[in-house]
């Protein structure tokens, strides 16, 4: 046991040894007299105050004031007044300043830890609604744990993304529906309300599912998680650490030793919070994080026991991570490893962590630790995203190729992508054009050209002739244009009442118009139902045609069902049109009809095609 946790002290004028026992839960301060017949135990979670004589004073005393146990019955004095119960007080006297300071420090830490725990517990009791994120103590922030659930098996990515796997992955489909409201609407309308088989629905959306699966399965790779945890010193002499659930999960994954320590101690010895508080002040944490461990560092007595176990873990890792020895000699490496320059002693990176004198500054261990971590991180991705299926890299390939004599080999022929010009098609087109123009003979063309050139030869171009057009022609042209403009103006007024607004907005970009939604004359509810109807009709039509055209006799039942769905669609459109068609809102009925007439036509065509097919089947 390290001597920081014990020391000689006098209690009630009896000499003895004072010892901090952190193994017990709660931790104890035990004093035992030298002869061993007297002892006192103070439970450290019951300590209220800790007082010590200042360094300037000659006396070296430590006073521990305990808490009042609320369970004790309140006594009454003679006059019936309640006597305030005196808290238990223990006084230890030391004869060595450093011993006292060490014990004092240890006690401070432990007591602070218990107090923090208490205060957080109280907080939780009193105001559960307060967000746990601002727990100011050295503790993890207990968040509702929702670690992302894997929708697909990323280790077998290739097979997870096949059509059949995607179609059977209900969880993936559900979460995609939750994500996309639009898709959800269509799904509800077609599959849930109208009985389109879900398999059918998804079969046309394989790429969508695949893209969604890929984008959601992106994972954060392993990283040096401990280096991201930064303890922050707060004003009241405490160290605050904020750790999220995900980070803890990552810590467990990257450092099995921490997982083991956690499993061993929680909840047997301490609560989860206490465990993390201890861990972050431990030497183990410093080691894993790659910091230098100083001898006088105060660690955590329990957690630091795992340091030795960790070395065992490291050794095992080293064995696992051993690289295969290359079969070829690295001449360049040998050149750098010049014994004349450096002697025969191995390089300092090759020597084990402790040098012959037995004292190590730990630098080597840190380097090794970091290397081990990096290699483990790379290794852990080996099986992700179907990397297993990739061809194995040959480590010696480069060397082998270097050795080969290749100067007599032929150069690889340059490979070009061939682009074919479709002369034939163009010629065929030209011939057709030629046929069209064959009514004009070359002679006529020649005459025309020569007349043009001679005309231009004769004189300068007289532009004034243009003004000699008769006024009737000009007027008729103007009228024609004006008429067209007037018709268009009327139309655009109907189409877009917000013309004035549009002009001011769209002056920035001339093609912006297309992106903004044109205002509609319809009330939003009717417009929305029109949209829904249109969407579901298109959905049914799509499935109907896919199966109808498939020519697969097994699909007959499905086609029949889809045909019935199309009939339903037709009915729905009709009923919608009838419902809006009334005397007072002729205008709305007109727009509804304009919106839906195309999809109605398509639905009717589909129905018609099915019927003729059935009729033919009967007559044959």
């Amino acid at each position: 046991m390290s001597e920081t946790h014990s020391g000689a002290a006098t209690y009630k004028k009896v000499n003895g040894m004072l010892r901090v026992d952190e193994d017990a839960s709660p931790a104890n301060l035990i004093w035992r007299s030298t002869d061993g017949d007297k002892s006192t135990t103070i439970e450290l979670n019951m300590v209220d105050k800790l007082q010590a004589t200042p360094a300037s004073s000659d006396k070296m005393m430590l006073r521990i004031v305990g808490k009042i146990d609320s369970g004790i019955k309140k006594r009454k004095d003679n006059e019936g007044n309640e006597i305030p119960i005196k808290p238990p007080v223990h006084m230890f006297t030391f004869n060595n300043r450093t011993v006292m300071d060490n014990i004092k420090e240890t006690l401070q830490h432990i007591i602070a830890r218990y107090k923090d725990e208490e205060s957080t517990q109280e907080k939780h009791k009193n105001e559960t609604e307060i967000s746990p994120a601002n727990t100011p103590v050295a503790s993890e922030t207990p968040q509702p744990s929702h670690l992302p659930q894997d929708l697909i098996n990323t280790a077998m990515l290739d097979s997870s993304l096949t059509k059949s796997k995607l179609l059977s992955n209900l969880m993936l489909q559900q979460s995609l529906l939750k994500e996309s409201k639009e898709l959800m609407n269509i799904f509800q309308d077609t599959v849930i309300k109208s009985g389109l088989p879900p398999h059918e629905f998804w079969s046309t959306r394989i790429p969508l599912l695949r893209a969604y699966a890929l984008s959601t399965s992106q994972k954060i790779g392993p990283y040096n998680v401990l280096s991201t945890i930064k303890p922050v010193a707060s004003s009241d002499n405490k160290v605050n650490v904020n750790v999220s659930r995900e980070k803890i999960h990552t810590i467990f994954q990257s450092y099995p030793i921490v997982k083991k320590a956690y499993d061993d101690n929680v909840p047997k010895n301490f609560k989860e919070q206490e465990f993390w508080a201890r861990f972050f002040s431990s030497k183990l944490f410093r080691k894993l994080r790659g910091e230098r461990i100083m001898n006088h560092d105060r660690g955590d007595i329990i957690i630091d026991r795992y340091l030795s176990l960790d070395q065992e873990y490291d050794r095992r890792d080293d064995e696992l991570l051993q690289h295969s020895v290359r079969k070829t000699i690295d001449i360049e490496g040998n050149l750098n490893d010049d014994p004349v320059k450096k002697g025969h002693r191995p390089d300092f990176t090759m020597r084990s962590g402790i040098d012959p004198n037995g004292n190590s500054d730990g630098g080597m261990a840190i380097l090794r630790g970091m290397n081990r971590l990096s290699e483990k991180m790379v290794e852990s991705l080996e099986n992700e995203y179907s990397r297993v299926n990739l061809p194995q890299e040959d480590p010696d390939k480069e060397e082998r190729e270097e050795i080969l004599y290749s100067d007599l080999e032929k150069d690889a022929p340059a490979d070009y992508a061939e682009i074919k010009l479709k002369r034939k098609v163009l010629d065929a087109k030209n011939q057709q054009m030629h046929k069209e123009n064959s009514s004009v003979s070359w002679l006529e063309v020649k005459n025309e050209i020569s007349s043009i050139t001679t005309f231009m030869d004769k004189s300068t171009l007289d532009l004034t002739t243009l003004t000699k057009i008769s006024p009737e022609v000009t007027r008729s042209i103007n009228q024609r244009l004006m008429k067209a403009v007037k018709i268009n103006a009327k139309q655009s007024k109907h189409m877009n009442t917000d013309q004035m607004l549009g002009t001011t907005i769209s002056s920035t970009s001339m093609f912006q118009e297309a992106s903004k939604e044109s205002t509609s004359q319809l009330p939003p509810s009717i417009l929305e139902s029109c949209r829904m109807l249109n969407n579901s009709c298109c959905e049914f039509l799509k499935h109907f045609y896919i199966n109808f055209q498939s020519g697969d006799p097994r699909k007959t039942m499905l086609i029949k069902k889809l045909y019935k769905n199309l009939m339903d669609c037709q009915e729905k459109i009709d009923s919608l049109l009838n419902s809006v068609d009334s005397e007072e809102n002729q205008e709305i009925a007109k727009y509804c009809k304009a919106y839906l007439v195309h999809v109605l036509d398509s639905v009717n065509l589909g129905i018609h095609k099915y019927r003729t097919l059935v009729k033919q089947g009967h007559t044959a």
Partner: protein
Amino acid sequence: MDAIADTVFQGTKSKTQEIEDTPSLLTVVVDTSIHSWVQLTKQQSGSGSEGSSGEKQLIEALKSIVVFLNAHLAFNSGNQVCLIAAHSEGMKYLYPSADSKPSMSMVSSDMYRGFRNVDEIVVEQWYRLFKEELEGQESKVSMKSSLSGAMSSALTYVNRILKENENTSLRSRLLVITCGTSQGKDEIFQYIPIMNCIFSATKMKCSIDVVKIGGGIESTFLQQATDATSGVYLHVENTRGLIQYLSTAMFIDPSLRNVIIKPNQGSVDFRTSCFLTGKVVAVGFVCSVCLCVLSVIPPGQKCPACDSPFDSKIIARLRRKPVLSNGVPKKKNVSNK
């Protein structure tokens, strides 16, 4: 006119004043393939209209274009013009031209110098264009119109000028003057290049206006081009009074495009044409590699445009006819929607 004044101009008065100062670039592509013009002249003289009685249609068109260019130059000292001919043998820049020194004076020397600098080159290049064709052999003259090619180069020119004048925030528009024949859909085979033009024009925010002289009233793809770029499509019977059309309907400043009501007539046919048969299709097949549209399943199991091989299984599936349980196949018409 009342309609325009009421709904549009009042609201944006302050804006227009501010916009008037920004210079703009006008690029004109004119279809000069002589065959169509000759055909047009023949038709109109045949139908007894007054078209052929006056001057040659091409000369008339040239004059109108020159005046139109001058008008554009007159609006703002920073305005620029470009004229490109889509000739039977290919496209040619008439202005600005590679040999910019005019040797013949073909326009009146009294003209305002700013106009004359442009007009002399335009007229002379125009003259040379036909002179060269006259001297050429018949066999060399191919019949295809290079309209889409000319439009593409016009857009590249616009792009270059816009890049050069980035700090002056130059605006641009493209006017296409094409000559239609009675056969109508003569630009049908240029669907893909014209689509490309449309995409780049929308990206550059350059609107495309189209004037179609003679021929059918509709012009599917050019109408699509104007619609997608908020341009004006106009069909006129002949070149008589062309300048009137140009100056009334084709002078919409790019900044006013989405404000002003355009004199477009009729509705745009948004369908596309089949790559193999040239028919306009409503429902068809699309190559997944080059997006070429087909009305029939192509022979040889590969795309006729890009040669990508098609999956034989999928082709077989497409060829399948719908069946019912009793196994009676049914003939199915895909493009019947």
